[in-house]
């Protein structure tokens, strides 16, 4: 089997496993999430139709039907994107709620991660190349320090300093309260302005991982024979550092990039919570506060899926970078 087809199979199998895990989880929990969910929905004023009750039970656990039939119904609902109604947002389905929030998170996470990856990798290459010097120490110590900041705390700090005290950035939200989301340039700019602080927070906290990973890889690669041979053949130091050392040291980091991209979506929970950002992370924040199980379930699935997709895309990219896996 070629590398790519193996990856596709793995993707499908893992996706299935994640979906199944999502099915199993609420059924393992003590107490009855179904009753709690129904109770909350009633309190939010949503009429409990039979269809509504059915949807909730399929998701969270039917006391009377067999597990197999529940599972079948569950899979069908997933395929049709029927996740029920959230009681935090009773006027729309869970699917709609998530659908509106997802682009915000993708844009935020995407920007932050790409930024952190590029800067972190470059710093790591430089630190590894100049290993043992003052430059290396300052980069590593600096990265350790910034990497240790709890993301939500850094967010609070930046919020306080740059938004509250200095007023350079807005305090909350994805866009100004009066505006309605459109695709106009002015709205985009406004959204961009709102995304700077949360993106900066995420970028700073994830930066250190890249720096260390790349630095370690560089140090290991620099000990390889082909780097010595390149130098013996008169290649310039810069060529050796980039085309020979860094290019090889990069490879393990690329696979890690996929994992990181997916997991940063999960990490966005705290940052979006702090900044009241309208992404899926913020949704989870709200869902947890309200014990909104249908929403939580669906979100967990979305997070897992985004992780899988990110890994898959990166795996495809890896084939381009490492000729040894091509068939």
């Amino acid at each position, binding site marked *: 089997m070629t590398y790519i087809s193996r990856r596709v199979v793995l993707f499908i199998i893992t996706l299935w496993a994640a979906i199944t895990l999502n099915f199993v989880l609420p059924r393992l929990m003590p107490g009855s999430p179904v009753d709690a969910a129904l109770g909350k929905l009633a309190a939010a004023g949503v009429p409990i139709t039979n269809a509504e009750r059915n949807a909730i039970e399929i998701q969270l656990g039917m006391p009377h039907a067999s597990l197999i039939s529940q599972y079948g119904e569950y899979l069908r609902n997933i395929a049709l994107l029927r996740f029920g109604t959230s009681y935090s947002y009773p006027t729309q389905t869970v699917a709609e709620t998530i659908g509106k929030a997802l682009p915000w998170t993708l844009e935020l996470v995407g920007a932050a991660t790409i930024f952190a990856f590029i800067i972190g990798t470059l710093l790591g290459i430089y630190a590894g190349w100049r290993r043992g010097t003052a430059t290396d120490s300052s980069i590593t110590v600096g990265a350790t320090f910034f990497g240790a900041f709890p993301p939500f705390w850094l967010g609070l700090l930046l919020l306080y300093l740059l938004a509250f005290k200095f007023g350079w950035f807005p305090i909350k939200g994805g866009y100004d309260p009066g505006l309605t989301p459109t695709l106009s340039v002015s709205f985009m700019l406004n959204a961009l302005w709102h995304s700077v602080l949360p993106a900066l927070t995420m970028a700073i906290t994830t930066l250190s991982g890249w720096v260390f990973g790349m630095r370690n890889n560089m140090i290991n690669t620099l000990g390889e024979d082909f780097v010595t041979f390149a130098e013996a*053949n*008169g290649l310039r130091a810069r*060529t050796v550092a980039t085309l*020979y050392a860094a290019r090889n040291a990069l490879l393990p980091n690329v696979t890690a990039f996929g994992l990181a991209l997916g997991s940063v979506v999960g990490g966005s929970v705290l940052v979006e919570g702090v900044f009241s950002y309208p992404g899926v992370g913020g949704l989870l924040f709200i869902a947890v506060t309200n014990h909104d199980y249908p929403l939580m379930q669906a979100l967990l699935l979305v997070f897992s899926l985004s992780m899988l997709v990110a890994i898959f895309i990166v795996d495809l990219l890896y084939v381009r970078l*490492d*000729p040894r896996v091509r068939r």
Partner: protein
Amino acid sequence: MALLEARGVNVVYEPSRGQRIWAVRDVNLTLEAGEFVGIVGESGCGKTTLGYALTRMLRPPARLDGGVITFDGTDIATLAGEQLRRRRRNGFALVMQSGMNALNPVRSIGHQFGDVLKANARPGDHLDAAAIRQRSTSLLESVQLDAEVLGRFPHELSGGMRQRVSIALALALEPRLIVFDEPTTALDVIVQEAVIQTIKDLQRDRGFTAVLISHDLGVVLEATDRVLVMYGGRIVEDQPAAVIAEGAHHPYTEALLNCYADPRADEVVLGGIPGSPPDLSLTEPGCPFTPRCPLAQDICREVDPPLAPLGRGWAACHVRAPAVRAGVEAGRAS
């Protein structure tokens, strides 16, 4: 003028924890243009370290500690950075052990040739893609490889092919000195033979000075004109290859020769050398072979034996090649 003269070369390994190790001690060596020299010795004798030192490829924690290495009139021991890099072109090159990992795994062979050719281009050279391809092809032909190798990646080539590619890449510098560090050690015997033959042919055709480092005395005797025997970081014998199997020599060399049994003899007696290699962290004077030497005398324990005339070459042995007086040092230098 000799192509390369090394005087008082010492190499020390300084690990962050642990003792300092003197891998190469007070080596004096002269290489003429066009010579084919072999350096032979057991593991840990310092031959590879010496090879790397002469081509200025030592890496931390190894360090050149004093000594002068004059290549074509210039002391290269003090050069560094860009100055050192420039000297390699048409200067000295190194082919590493068996080329297994000597090639960049993510770059095609053709690109790697391009890298080397472009890095060593002279001002005024016009190196477009066609010129690079043409030169790469001719370099590959000189090591009996086909041009289609250029499109391949290292992992697609066999060990022997990779070794040849390494040699071809080193040739791209048009060097006047090439040090081959154990070029055949990780190859099987049949491929070994072919690679050695290739090296011999190249040396004869292009006339560069070749230094062949190997623990395999057989390989060295087959290819080289002159053999240096190293022990404990020092050169203990220096003889033309033709005579090394005859006559009296340094006790270590004799013991080494004894290790090779004659397969045609009726009784094959496998020899060995009793004792263990010297502790390279000690810096006391005296001949390093003393504990294992059947001819050892008191002076051997106290005074470093200098290289003195023995037969058609030199040996560092108080017993076999006693230094008549201190002045023999000066006689050796030319």
